């Protein structure tokens, strides 16, 4: 087995750590993207004609539109920019954004599909065993914030790739703030050996 992931404690004989193929894989939960349609939109008109749209200007300045496939929600601003949330993969987010563009186009606006950008990708994962957050916080102090009084999870801000990882004592983790799917997997590859070295052994 090629030990590409050098673990800190050589005595760990757990196959899950030494072979990357057996690592758990993070599952993407949410992809947020933004697009610029390039023309001002009349939100009142959109709400009137589209079926699945809410607009409450007193509460929030954007209209919320939802489509069923891919299951996403879009915030449509009168400037012509939209935020598309709820997609499960980058490709789905792009498809959804194009669908929203189609809907708005059909309503009679002159749409161009500019500056599509994935802003945030969130993924979750389970390392399988409970973790000792207290021990972890004493070792990696620079990147960590652990305030059990304020939040039960430990917040690890990785510099490269620039993501935030929430680590919970149950062993479940959340990786957020990535701009590409690869960043998620890279972050997980970096953090997995660290997490496993702070397992709670019964």
């Amino acid at each position: 087995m090629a030990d590409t992931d050098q673990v800190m404690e050589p005595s760990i004989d757990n196959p899950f750590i030494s072979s990357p193929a057996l690592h758990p894989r993070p599952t993407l939960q949410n992809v947020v993207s933004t697009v610029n349609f390039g023309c001002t939109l009349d939100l009142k008109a959109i709400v009137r004609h589209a079926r699945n749209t809410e607009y409450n200007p007193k509460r929030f300045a954007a209209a919320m539109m939802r489509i069923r496939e891919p299951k996403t929600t879009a915030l449509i601003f009168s400037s012509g920019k939209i935020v598309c949330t709820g997609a499960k993969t980058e490709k789905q987010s792009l498809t959804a954004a194009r669908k929203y563009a189609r809907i708005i186009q059909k309503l009679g606006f002159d749409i161009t599909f500019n500056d599509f950008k994935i802003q945030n990708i969130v993924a979750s994962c389970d390392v399988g065993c409970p973790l000792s957050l207290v021990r972890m916080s004493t070792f990696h102090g620079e990147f960590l914030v652990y305030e059990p009084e304020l939040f039960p999870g430990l917040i690890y801000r990785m510099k490269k790739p620039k993501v935030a990882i929430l680590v919970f004592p149950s062993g479940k983790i959340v990786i957020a703030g990535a701009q590409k799917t690869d960043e998620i997997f890279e972050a997980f590859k970096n953090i997995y050996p660290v997490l496993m070295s702070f397992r709670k052994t019964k």
Partner: protein
Amino acid sequence: MADSFCPDCKRPTEVVFDHSAGDTVCSECGLVLEAHSIDETSEWRTFANESGDNDPVRVGGPSNPLLADGGLSTVISKPNGSSGDLLNSSLGRWQNRGANPDRSLIQAFKTIATMSDRLGLVATIKDRANEIYKKVEDQKPLRGRNQDAILAACLYIACRQEDKPRTVKEICSVANGATKKEIGRAKEYIVKQLEVEMGQSMEMGTIHAGDFLRRFCSHLGMSHQAVKAAQEAVQKSEELDIRRSPISIAAAVIYIITQLSDDKKLLKDISLATGVAEGTIRNSYKDLHPHASKLVPSWYAKVEDLKNLCSP
């Protein structure tokens, strides 16, 4: 009595200091070496119950390096009796022009002092809190926040830095009008600012249940044996897989230990002393109960007593 060189005797001789005249006199030949020495001790003694108009003290408080000019203050006061409208005179108005750059600082320091008094904190913690506040004061993102929350957060950080942490709920209780959330957010912000300014020398360890145990136990009036047992139990609990806040664990451990002793404390009392809700203590007790035999030290209670522990 000191030894000084006397010019007449031409050798070091014993020298006497005469307080009444302020003279330094050689005891061998009687030559006055220094006259009119200035006495730097306090002129008047101040007592707590004496005050009012006839306060003869002419000096102010100790100099505070945190304030801009060292805390020097001379104020134009109202004259006794005669014309009470002299404060409206030009001099009085001049005094209150309000351009004192330290006014908000002094106000903030006063609030911090009140809060730390209520918690019974030592002067080191109060001074540290003052320093922290001075470092972060008057920065733009802070302006929008609740001033009380910021001061409370400074106090919280100071306690943590001195290794005498106080729970956020305790700080909440003496800070007027600041919620736990606000204090938490202010604390995060201040910590970030301090790291930027001081370059990562922030040493604030995570809180442990053991840090608070001593205080909670003394609030409840537990016996010395019980306190020791509780401390041991808390040490052992860190190894177990219990996913609860350290304060809740401390409260639950106190509950277990007191249930095993003769002096049983009510859930209500523990809840009041620790700030943990009764329901939370009950739930934490449910988590800890299966491990009770591992936690409670053997010299404190026998296994049969543990069986008598009511199952939640």
